[in-house]
């Protein structure tokens, strides 16, 4: 893969062509943002790259796309810049190397997570706890001590938030974000952009993935299922915490309780969303940089594992499988958490910040 500096030079060349052309102005935020600039420094290119949703509408519309000698391919270039950006903003910098082996990283971290969960079980109640079935209030805690579980996850969350925060802050600086960019109007607009995944719409017809000739809305729908799945699962955890710590009800919760309903919906959405995206990816006949495909793939498989193990845990929680399943689920969740700053998930942060900066920029425009 080309280095970031080469990518910037190439972006400058291509975006100058776009600025002289402007035909794609109506598709997304990238082209209006490019037109606000007459030069393209690193921060500008990173900003535009994270605005690009890779819908590829501009690419099918571009009369200067290869084999034309101008060789314009905005989504392809932006995909590479984003990838280089994930590394650049990763903190601590040495861990950026993990982006080079996404599948291995996901697998190892997932396994490490499971090992950790296993150790926690053994530490709490001895190895025998794994073979028994556990029912009644507090069943999960007959496997892992509650305090240990809570402390573990809080520590992990704090760490991940810190690591993501440092990286996000660096990106924010580079793309020109400042205090003034944080105005409430820009936030509101950004929220809508994220929830609607506005710029994956291809200007109305859908995005040109997996089929480069016929637009489809599948990718946007599936992404939002996955995204929503994570959000619901997170909400389920919060709800469980409320029920347990504020109301004093111990898990497992009945099927018709808030945490279980949220968790089930979330798990199902995750499984369908991640599975669907994997399926679209297999059908794609595109020239995606293989690196970015494996990055997506690693994360999607991990998400799939989180969703499936969560649902299985729910279905089989009264059987002796509860132990192994809990370990599997906790392990993969730890995997998602820990790889967040060093895997696909970091794009959510980068993109949200870029959208925010874009909205702020547009609002400042005369």
């Amino acid at each position: 893969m080309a280095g970031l500096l080469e990518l910037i030079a190439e972006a400058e060349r291509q975006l100058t062509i776009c600025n002289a052309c402007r035909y794609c102005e109506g598709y997304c935020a990238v082209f209006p943002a490019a037109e606000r600039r007459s030069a393209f420094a690193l921060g500008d290119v990173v900003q535009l790259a994270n605005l690009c949703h890779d819908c590829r509408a501009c690419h099918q519309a571009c009369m200067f796309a290869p084999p034309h000698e101008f060789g314009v391919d905005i989504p392809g270039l932006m995909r590479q810049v984003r990838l280089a950006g994930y590394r650049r903003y990763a903190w601590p910098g040495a861990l950026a190397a993990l982006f080079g082996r996404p599948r291995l990283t996901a697998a190892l971290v997932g396994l490490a997570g499971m090992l950790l969960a296993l150790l926690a079980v053994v530490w709490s109640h001895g190895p025998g706890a794994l073979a028994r079935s556990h029912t009644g209030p507090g069943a999960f805690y007959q496997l892992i001590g509650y305090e240990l579980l809570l402390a573990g996850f809080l520590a992990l969350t704090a760490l991940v938030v810190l690591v993501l925060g440092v990286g996000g802050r660096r990106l924010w600086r580079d793309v020109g974000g400042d205090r003034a960019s944080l105005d409430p109007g820009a936030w509101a607009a950004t929220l809508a952009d994220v929830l609607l995944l506005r710029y994956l719409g291809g200007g109305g017809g859908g995005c040109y993935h997996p089929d480069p000739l016929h637009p489809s809305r599948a990718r946007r729908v599936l992404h939002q299922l996955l995204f929503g799945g994570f959000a619901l699962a997170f909400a389920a955890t919060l709800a469980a915490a409320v029920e347990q710590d504020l109301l004093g009800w111990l898990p497992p919760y009945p099927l018709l309780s808030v945490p279980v309903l949220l968790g089930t919906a979330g798990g199902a959405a995750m499984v369908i969303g991640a599975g669907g995206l994997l399926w679209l990816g297999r059908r794609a006949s595109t020239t995606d940089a293989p690196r970015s495909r494996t990055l997506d793939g690693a994360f999607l498989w991990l998400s799939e594992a989180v969703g499936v193990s969560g649902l299985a845990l729910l279905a089989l929680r009264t059987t002796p499988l509860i132990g192994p399943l809990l370990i599997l689920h906790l392990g993969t969740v730890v995997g998602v958490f820990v790889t967040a700053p060093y895997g696909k998930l970091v794009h959510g942060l980068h993109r949200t910040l870029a959208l925010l900066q874009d909205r702020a920029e547009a609002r400042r425009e005369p």
Partner: protein
Amino acid sequence: MAGRAAVRPDVLVVGGGNAALCAALAARDAGGRVLLLEKTAPEWRGGNSKYTRNVRVASPEYPEDEFLRDLIEVTGPDLDRQLARFTIGRSRELPAWMEAHGARWQGALRGTLQLSRTNRFFLGGGKALLNAYYRHAERAGVEVRYRTEVLALEIENGVFRRARVRAPEGEAEIEAGAVVVASGGFEGNREWLRRTHGEAADNYLVRGSGANDGRLLGQLLELGARRRGNPHGFHAVACDARAPRAEGGIVTRVDAIPFGIVVNREGRRFADEGADLWPKRYASWGGLIARQPGQLAFSVFDRQVMGRFIPPLYPPYRAERLEDLAGQMGIDAVALIETVEGFNRAVDSDAPYDPGRLDGRGTRGVDPPKSNWALALEQPPFFAYPLRPGITFTYLAVGVDERARVLGEDGHPFANVFAAGEVMAGNVLLNGYLGGFGMTIGSVFGRIAGEEAAVCGRAA
């Protein structure tokens, strides 16, 4: 193809640009079996049409009379007025028809707000529009063959019988009930341009499709079609001389001219850079540069105006001193400096500079004068763009009637030969250009040609 036992199509459409697709879709809607032949590979389909961005249409906000007046203003009074009025009238229906066949719109692009009342802009430009048309055609059952060039039409006693084509599998003959010729002008044909413009033609850039060689235009004229439009004329604008010889599209045009001076290879100015020629301004520069030695010129300006125009795709030459700039331009430094100094002395600095309007800030005592926006070139760095004429399209055309039938010299139509687009635009556009009117002509006559050809092709 050769050997493939396809059903005989009712309508054969020659070409793969806007006019051809409109004809194919309309013929299909009218129930015809349609075969469309595009000379290029799929990646290059769409001729000049893929480089367009908008179409001009009459509407309640843009009355037909005003449209016609605008047209006559640019093209002169010799056009077929009745046919022009007819074209403009039919343009009203275009937006709805285009939408029904997949077109999507966007607001007027930045820097083109003056067109927002008169023109509709395609979301993503002409290639996106064409992609949508091709998708619709495919779904509707139009057969499209790429890399298939029509070499000749066989016409007996005014009746089209078959076309001789060259495809990757070899040459073959294709019979059809009717034919729509929508194969564009001859701007991509160097030989032809050399015949009409001599050696100079080698230095022209072709902004659009290099595949438009005018083969069928020439053949129809030989077969006795009525000749319309100016055989020598083409529309040309000032383009960056470093642009590719063909297919440079919209991004190679240079908009800097009114902001500085223009000199030729000898370092001399040769025309009024501040003349009020809008909307013909850029078009006139194509012709002016074509008459300079080597068909080369340079737009020269200084720091004061940098950033006031849309930069073209290549960076300008740039130097702190004029003599170094001349070095990069490859022209005589003494001549350039002399020209700039003479110009600077002549600038009438009493009137205030205002690029937003005709500011009347001109020159005194220099020939040719610059009648507006004259600023002395005195603040380094200095910049220059090399310019060549870039041909947009040619004007020569076959005569047609309101049913898009190709007319013979005697004014009698061929029975089943129709034409649409650039190949017949010269009936209503003889000179100059009205932004968006090329797509108007192609869409209006493409539709009509398709409908008419379906009727007569099915009967045949």
